[in-house]
């Protein structure tokens, strides 16, 4: 083995799954375009994107339920592009759960277990173990129609995990549930995934879900992956205007960039590095990155503004600021302490700072 060490990939953590150049169309609709992605062993990756962007299609292609038109899928270095779904060793939780209504919970969970290998008693024990794992012990004799949505979701999870799959695929597993159940189940799924260490891909259109659950997020738009990164990377350094806008709240202002500076109205702001695009740009900054406290004449990118409205939202104040000379308003989230210490009020003129390291620029059609 050692003799071939030089040929093995240098990474110590091998990719569990690799998809490369996946393309898929339905008639005239391009559902996926040149999608490439790698998933590490034991990792939880979220596909995040608006409805219709191709998340489900990508998941189904990976699962082998939808044949891809182009591209390659590898598991542990082995090409599985044309392996039928049943041979891929992937567990799937469908958006509708697809629980078999005429089978009891126990029969649903044991559906993918081989009676020949485990025996009747072995199956019963395994089912009980799985139900206990998802926190549903003792309901094996009930039918899916007799369960709540959250319980059905966990039965579907237990059924998918029963054959101990190498990869767990979840298609919007929480979207059909109400907000409170969703929050609780989110934590359960995360804990379970950590405990079992099962490599997981989860589809969601809910950015909060993706940010809290994922080890890495793949943000998708129009059948393409726009960015792959940790939740913090995605939030802090979105690579495109779409990602910036889709994840979290973002101010988008029309501006013009020249080397190291960006001009908005009559004002020039300093940038952190000068490799940013030049010419017409969208200037982006998150509302919570707008600074009001301790802004002086020497502070970088200090901008005088007028507070148009100041709205209390609970954890913070949401202020709409008007730059003098700027047409677009600027949204800023100000802490309650800032507002009370500085005695801010609507109609007031203040100076805020737009820290250079928080500004993001994206090219704009002039």
């Amino acid at each position, binding site marked *: 083995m050692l003799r071939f060490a030089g040929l093995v990939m240098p990474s110590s953590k091998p990719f569990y799954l690799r998809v490369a150049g996946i393309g898929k169309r339905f008639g005239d609709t391009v559902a996926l375009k040149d999608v490439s992605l790698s998933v590490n062993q034991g990792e939880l990756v979220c596909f995040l994107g608006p409805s219709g962007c191709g998340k489900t299609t990508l998941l189904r292609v990976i699962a082998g339920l939808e044949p891809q038109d182009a591209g390659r899928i590898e598991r542990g270095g082995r090409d599985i592009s044309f392996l039928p779904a049943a041979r891929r060793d992937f567990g799937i939780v469908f958006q509708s759960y697809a629980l078999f209504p005429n089978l009891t919970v126990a029969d649903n969970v044991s559906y993918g277990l081989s009676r020949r290998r485990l025996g009747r008693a072995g199956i019963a024990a395994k089912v009980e173990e799985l139900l206990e794992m998802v926190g549903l012990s003792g309901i094996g004799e009930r039918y899916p*129609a007799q369960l709540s949505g959250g319980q059905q979701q966990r039965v579907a999870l237990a059924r998918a995990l029963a054959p101990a799959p190498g990869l767990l695929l979840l298609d919007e597993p929480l979207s059909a549930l109400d907000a409170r159940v969703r929050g609780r189940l989110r934590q359960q799924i995360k804990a379970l995934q950590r405990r079992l260490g099962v490599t997981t891909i989860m589809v969601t259109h809910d950015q909060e879900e993706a940010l809290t659950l994922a080890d890495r997020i793949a943000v998708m738009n129009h059948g393409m992956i726009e960015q792959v990164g940790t939740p913090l990377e995605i939030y802090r350094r979105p690579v495109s205007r779409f990602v910036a806008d889709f994840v979290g709240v973002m101010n988008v202002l029309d501006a013009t960039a020249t080397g190291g500076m960006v001009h908005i109205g009559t004002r020039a702001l300093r940038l952190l590095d000068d490799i940013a695009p030049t010419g017409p740009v969208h200037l982006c900054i998150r509302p919570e990155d707008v600074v009001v406290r301790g802004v002086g004449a020497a502070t970088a990118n200090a901008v005088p503004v007028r507070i148009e409205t100041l709205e209390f939202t609970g954890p913070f104040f949401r202020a709409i600021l008007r730059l003098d000379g700027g047409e677009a308003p600027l949204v800023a989230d100000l802490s309650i302490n800032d507002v009370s210490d500085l005695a801010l009020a609507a109609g007031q003129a203040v100076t805020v700072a737009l820290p250079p390291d928080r500004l993001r620029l994206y090219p704009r059609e002039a």
Partner: protein
Amino acid sequence: MSAVAAAPARRSLDRDAWIARVAIAALAIALIVTVALPLYAMLSRGLESKSGAFVGFANYVAYFTTPGVGRAVVNSLVIALASTVVTVSVAFAFAYGLTRSHMPCKGVLKAVALAPLLAPSLLPGIALVYLFGKQGILKSLMFGQDIYGPIGILLGEVFYCFPAAILILSTALSLSDQRLHDAAVSLGASRWRIFRTVTLPGARYGLISACFVVFTLAITDFGVPKVIGGWYDVLAIDVYKQVVGQQDFQKGAVVSALLLLPAALAFTADFFVRRRQVALLSARSVAFRPRPERVRDGLLFIFCAAVALAILTVLLTAAGASFVKFWPYNLDLWLGHYDFNNKDGGGWRAYYNSVEMALWTATCGTAVVFLGAYLSEKSNLFAAGRATIRFLAMIPMAVPGLVLGLAYIFFFNDPANPLNVLYRTMAILVISTIVHFYTVAHLTAVTALKQMDPEFEAAGASLGVPWYTTFRRVTVPVAMPAVLDISIYLFVSAMTTVSAVVFLYAPSTALASIAVLNMDDAGDIAPAAAMAMMIVYTSGAVRLLHWLATRGLARRSQAWRGR
């Protein structure tokens, strides 16, 4: 997992996909052989001379220049149009009463309205002869007109077509949105205005659909005019006469092609109409709930009760005539008319043949139809095969029974066809009957399958379970009500059908409905009525069993069907 251990599993999974492909191919080929090829054989025979040479449309020209032919065409159109107008108007009012009023006894009235489904179309003819014929008890109502002829045919066709119209119209009328009515009422619209602006447009597609279906049934029906048509020539009788009487197959093929025309047109139009109806009721619609209204409910009840009484009169007349010595002169109870073995037509053997044929049709037909619908809807393999199944499954609806029967003669009686061993066997009766009623059965199965979660198959596959296991353990149990519906539909249709099988039976495989035809032909009208009633009793009993089975099933599956 090592590659060595994985190999056998892989082969078995490829095998599962191959089983599906082979099943799709087998069904597609079966439909090509039993639907497409016979029709092709028939249509091409119409373009050939007796010796088999291609003569183009010469047979058609010859047919149309035969004296008296124009009359049969006109007569058929007149009867079909009149039947359509009368049946659809009466059925609309009846269905309106069933769905939009608070009249009493709705269940009984609906059951009576659908009762004609249990009888062969020969039965109304026979009963009408008893009622309005030369010795008829209601002869005075005819004001000197003869029941043998257009009047008799019209009345018989209305009886025969009524259930089909009721089924379509009561579905259309019950698919109405309460919110529209509430809006109209709150805007102060008069009752007549609401009827004109809300009710009629809502049921428009149902009305059009019902007109097409009734027109097709009436123009292609053969049973009623056979018994009561007298001198009044119609196309359906013409086919029968040309083929059975004069053995002129070319001419038979020509008339068949003509009969195919209105049916195919109606079917095509109906297909597009149905397509547009889909969006009529949105998910957020509120089902219409009629409110009691004494005058309207009373009037509708009187009307529906009168119609139901007329239907019952027809059925009870046939039953009565079969149980008495000599209707209407000697009303002593007598079972002699049921002594079929002393009459021409096949005797009791014919009845048992019918039951046997209906059982085969119901079991094999349901299996084939449901599997075909499943594979064509849920598989993703062999797209061309699935498209073939889907397309050919829709054709039989447009093919009248007589035409199908004739097409089967041309195809299966051909000495060059290796399948001609089937000719004159029970098997060909079963096959032709399954094909004859394939479309409705297929659509019932497709509807049930479409209501299922489309991910069941994917879920099964992702758990490593073969498709046929998921089909057996999940799909069939969940669709069991539809499976039962299909089997009862096929059974009753097989018991009552005359038109296709009349060309295909052999003396040893005569059927009850054909015995009715032959005994009536021979003047044994009371035994014919008795045999027709045997069909009614049997289909009625099986319907009852079906109802009990459906109820039992509903009770047992209550736990998981929910709500």
